[in-house]
């Protein structure tokens, strides 16, 4: 059987239609989101109508190309490829279609074919910088470092501001273990794109290669996951085609994560307006409204979300947390209890419930929740501190000290726990548990790491317990210097304590 006939029969069998050469098999749109399906169906219809008549080649090419971009936007790779090839065949002078084809193939890991497509695009448009950068990237991935560098140099010559080309040249230098060149390139790329914190990792590798451990460490500490995005209008155009609730939610999430809260809120609002039952949209809108400072509106959205989906644990958690921030209300407790019941493994929810219980005067219940939170997430220093503070409130000082010691063993770098233990050792109501010398060591370590009035005050308490009232007074004065923003009653208490220290021994609290 001839391949074409076989393909046609296959397409009939799956209910699809194929046109063009190579044939474009229209995909089954039923499983897609309705809005997406309608968008693609309209473009398919347009192509079908144009393909049936005597349409000028450029118009038909545009229809194929546009449909290809649409398929591409939704990762429907096979029909997208066929569309691009038809567009390129019908309008061979237009570099857009081989370029878009190259992007599609590169995304699919078909590097050799992608490289050929970009080379084709470059024949039609010599200074297609994005294509040059992509060819350079592909050559590097294929281990053709020299070719990669030549292509990237060419891109940089065409567009000296291309931080992507600069960064990739830094990476090829690293590949060659030419660390000095890597440093030069990567520093230049970082200067051009200072937000691209992933470059710090590359710089750390380069400096490590040069034996400059301190510089490597500095850059490692700044390394993140924001890379240099190569400028490519074709990918922006393809991305812009995506529509539907799901993509709006994804875009809103990106905007939120990048601190563009107004944009995120607008996107979430559009989702909720189109589909009021979208719980995800409503919960995320509430979270965004909190960032915008409108807590009342956030609470209203969460209440509405729970009216529509009464069991949603995220809505319960968020609403409980928001309400708890206003004070330990019964409603906050109720929502957080619902969240922990729904997600018994959620350590954060247990900790939030514990805080509400503790602040609401239920220390025994709070203690149980804190213990669950610590068991579920032993790295949660806030839960560990909360557990110890609750034990203090219950006058179980010895256990509180044990818990803090355990916490510090597990999390030796924890400033919170170090401070908590210093405070307990300095001023525990059970004097037998005090240890002024150790309290002082811990308090000074915390102060050195983070010089805040609270930490200075703890240092003062520790000095007093250790018997050095003069030092305690000095630390208390330091604490008071930074206490301007504290409530007057707190400041007064601190001044009273200073007076006690100034009187001299005994000055322990």
């Amino acid at each position: 059987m001839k391949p074409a006939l076989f393909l046609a029969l296959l397409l009939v069998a799956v209910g699809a239609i194929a046109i063009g050469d190579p044939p474009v098999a229209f995909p089954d749109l039923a499983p897609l989101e309705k809005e997406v399906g309608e968008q693609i169906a309209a473009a398919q219809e347009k192509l079908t109508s144009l393909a049936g008549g005597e349409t000028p080649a450029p118009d038909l090419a545009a229809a194929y190309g546009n449909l290809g971009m649409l398929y591409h936007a939704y990762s429907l790779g096979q029909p997208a490829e066929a569309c691009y090839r038809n567009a390129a065949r019908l309008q061979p002078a237009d570099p857009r279609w081989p370029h878009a084809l190259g992007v599609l193939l590169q995304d699919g890991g078909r590097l050799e074919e992608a490289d050929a497509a970009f080379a084709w695009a470059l024949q039609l448009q010599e200074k297609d910088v994005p294509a040059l950068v992509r060819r350079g990237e592909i050559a590097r991935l294929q281990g053709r470092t020299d070719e990669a560098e030549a292509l990237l140099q060419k891109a940089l010559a065409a567009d000296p501001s291309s931080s992507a080309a600069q960064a990739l040249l830094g990476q090829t230098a690293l590949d060659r273990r030419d660390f000095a060149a890597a440093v030069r390139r990567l520093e230049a790329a970082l200067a051009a794109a200072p937000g691209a914190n992933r470059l710090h990792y590359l710089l750390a590798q380069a400096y490590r290669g040069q034996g400059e451990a301190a510089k490597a460490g500095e850059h490692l500490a700044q390394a993140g996951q924001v890379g240099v995005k190569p400028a490519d209008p074709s990918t922006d155009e393809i991305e812009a085609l995506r529509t539907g609730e799901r993509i709006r939610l994804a875009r809103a999430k990106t905007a939120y994560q990048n601190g563009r809260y107004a944009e995120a809120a607008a996107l979430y609002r559009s989702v909720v307006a189109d589909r009021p039952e979208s719980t995800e949209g409503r919960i995320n809108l509430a979270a965004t409204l909190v960032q915008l400072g409108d807590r009342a509106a956030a609470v209203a959205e969460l209440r509405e979300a729970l009216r529509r989906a009464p069991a949603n644990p995220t809505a319960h958690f968020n609403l409980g947390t928001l309400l708890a921030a206003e004070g330990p209300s019964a409603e906050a407790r109720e929502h957080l209890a619902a969240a922990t019941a729904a997600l018994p493994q959620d350590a954060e929810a247990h900790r939030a419930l514990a805080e509400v219980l503790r602040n609401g005067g239920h220390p025994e219940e709070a203690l149980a929740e804190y213990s669950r939170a610590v068991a579920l997430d032993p790295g949660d220093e806030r839960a560990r501190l909360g557990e110890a503070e609750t034990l203090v409130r219950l006058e179980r000082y010895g256990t509180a000290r044990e818990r803090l010691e355990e916490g510090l063993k597990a999390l030796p770098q924890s400033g919170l726990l170090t401070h908590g233990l210093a405070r307990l050792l300095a001023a525990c109501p059970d004097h037998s548990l005090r240890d002024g010398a150790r309290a002082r060591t811990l308090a000074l370590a915390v102060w050195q790491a983070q010089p805040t009035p609270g930490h200075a005050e703890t240092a003062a308490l520790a000095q007093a317990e250790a018997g050095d009232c003069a030092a305690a007074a000095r630390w208390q004065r330091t604490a008071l210097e930074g206490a301007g923003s504290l409530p007057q009653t707190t400041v007064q208490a601190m001044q009273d304590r200073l007076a006690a220290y100034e009187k001299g021994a005994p000055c322990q609290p």
Partner: protein
Amino acid sequence: MIHMPMCEAHRLRFSALLAGVFLALPVRPAPPAPFVDRAAEWGLTFRYDTGSTGQLYYPEIVGGGAALFDYDNDGDLDVFLVQGTVLEPGKGAAHPIASAGGRLFRNDLIVNGVRHDKPHFVDVTEASGIKASGYGMGVAAGDFDNDGWVDLYVLNFGSNQLWHNNGDGTFTDVTRAAGADDPRMSLSAAAADLDRDGWLDLYIADYVEFSIDHNVVCYAQSSRRDFCGPSSFPPTPDKLLRNRGNGTFEDLSQKSGIAAKAGRGMGVVAADFDGDGLPDVFVANDGMENFLWKNRGNLTFEEVALPAGVAVNADGKVQANMGIAAGDYDDDGDLDLFVTHLDGETNTLWVNLGGGQFEDRTLQAGLGAPSLPFTGFGTAWIDYDNDGRQDLLAVDGAVRLIDAQAQRGDPFPYAQTHQMFHNVGGGRFTEVSREMGEPFQRAEVGRGAAFGDIDNDGDMDVLIVAANGPARLLVNEVGNRNPWLGLRLVGKPPGAKGERDMLGALVEIVRKGAPALRRRAATDGSYASASDPRVLVGLGDAPEVTEVRVTWPDGKSEVFPPPPLRAYTKLLEGTGRAPAPPEPPKKASPQP
């Protein structure tokens, strides 16, 4: 049906003519495919069932695994395969409905000391007493009570199970009595003597926090419903269980420091990466930085992956780290790492520069571009052709919907083909998947893989677990054409009742006229699986071995005389000779 009688007649006559012509020519048979799937032929009939509820619960896309271990001490590798279940909200972590749980298959290659010509597998699950009816994700193997019989640790979505090998063909669930449970979603575990006290400890790589009662709904880029990615679920800390040596374990997760960091652990290897004599732990985390827990002694660990250069790839990108191969592929005396990844990312080769500092040399090795279209899981350094250089096998299977397969109506559209990368020397690899035979042409949803010499013929075979597909037994048909030697490194630590495999032992094969070859005895690594603890060394064109040096897990070294070629030899700790003391440094001779 198409009738073409005339054409058929012509073809027959034409064929006869051709046959007549070619009979006169010397015939060279096509070379055999290196790997042939003999699972069904040898009685290993098993299908890993993910449950396929249609709800796209996260565990349904990441399991399962297999163990190759000699549970009956008869000298051949038996098989344990974990099994999924149908997940239902409100029924706890796992609710067995259709499947019969994990299965134990006895290998009857050797029966009563008599070796047959090929393995035959018999399902002995019922007789063994194993009831692994949780949602099975992976498995680890090791003799945890030093009685000379290998035990099994089954990793589940939900509570894990420690099956004690009673030595009479049966197993007992001792999870609770041993304090060995971990209720989180666990995928892989490493059995290793982390405190060098002679007893195997357990490091369990836990994955994410997931609840079937509150499933998260995710979509593919096409807007079709699809499985979520790992970032949809919070990471969770791993678990470290210290073997007390009395049949029980102590949870040292917090005290050791490993609980301080939450990760999405998929693969785990315990080995000495920095050459200080203490086994460290490398954890492959999905969609986030890997962990390299440096062993500080006294079972305390410090996480050093970022400064060591193995947290992220050369570009500084976090990757979806899955399966691990740890081995000294360049025979320079330290362990290198190869980790499989998601499609769109390369698999990554981190070369150990010495002292536990690594450099990503994926692209230079030629391993980057070929892996981009694939999602890799199980993997290992295997010298499939016994040429003395360790090659790489990657078992592939997608986790993101492949739209072309979905459009064809495939009910589980995540199938990909497996890959083999041949080590051509000089730090370079070439993909040879197309030459590896039918098992490498067939697309399936590959997950765990266990590696070992299943037919004891001197070359490495592979047991592959495919999600919603039959288990594959890739039998190596070519490796033993080259000379090889096999070693079983055993010891009897103080207080032990029997000899056990000394997991973590390092062996150096010293050859005449060729560089020494370095290998590691271990069952961990790969993905969700436990491999053959024996060391199989291909010798290529330099088969003259002068001695074998072993560094045991307790740090002591011994030298053994050359063992016979083309055979397995047991090396017992304490029966070798002490290595010669290092020679004093010679004075530098003046350069001409």
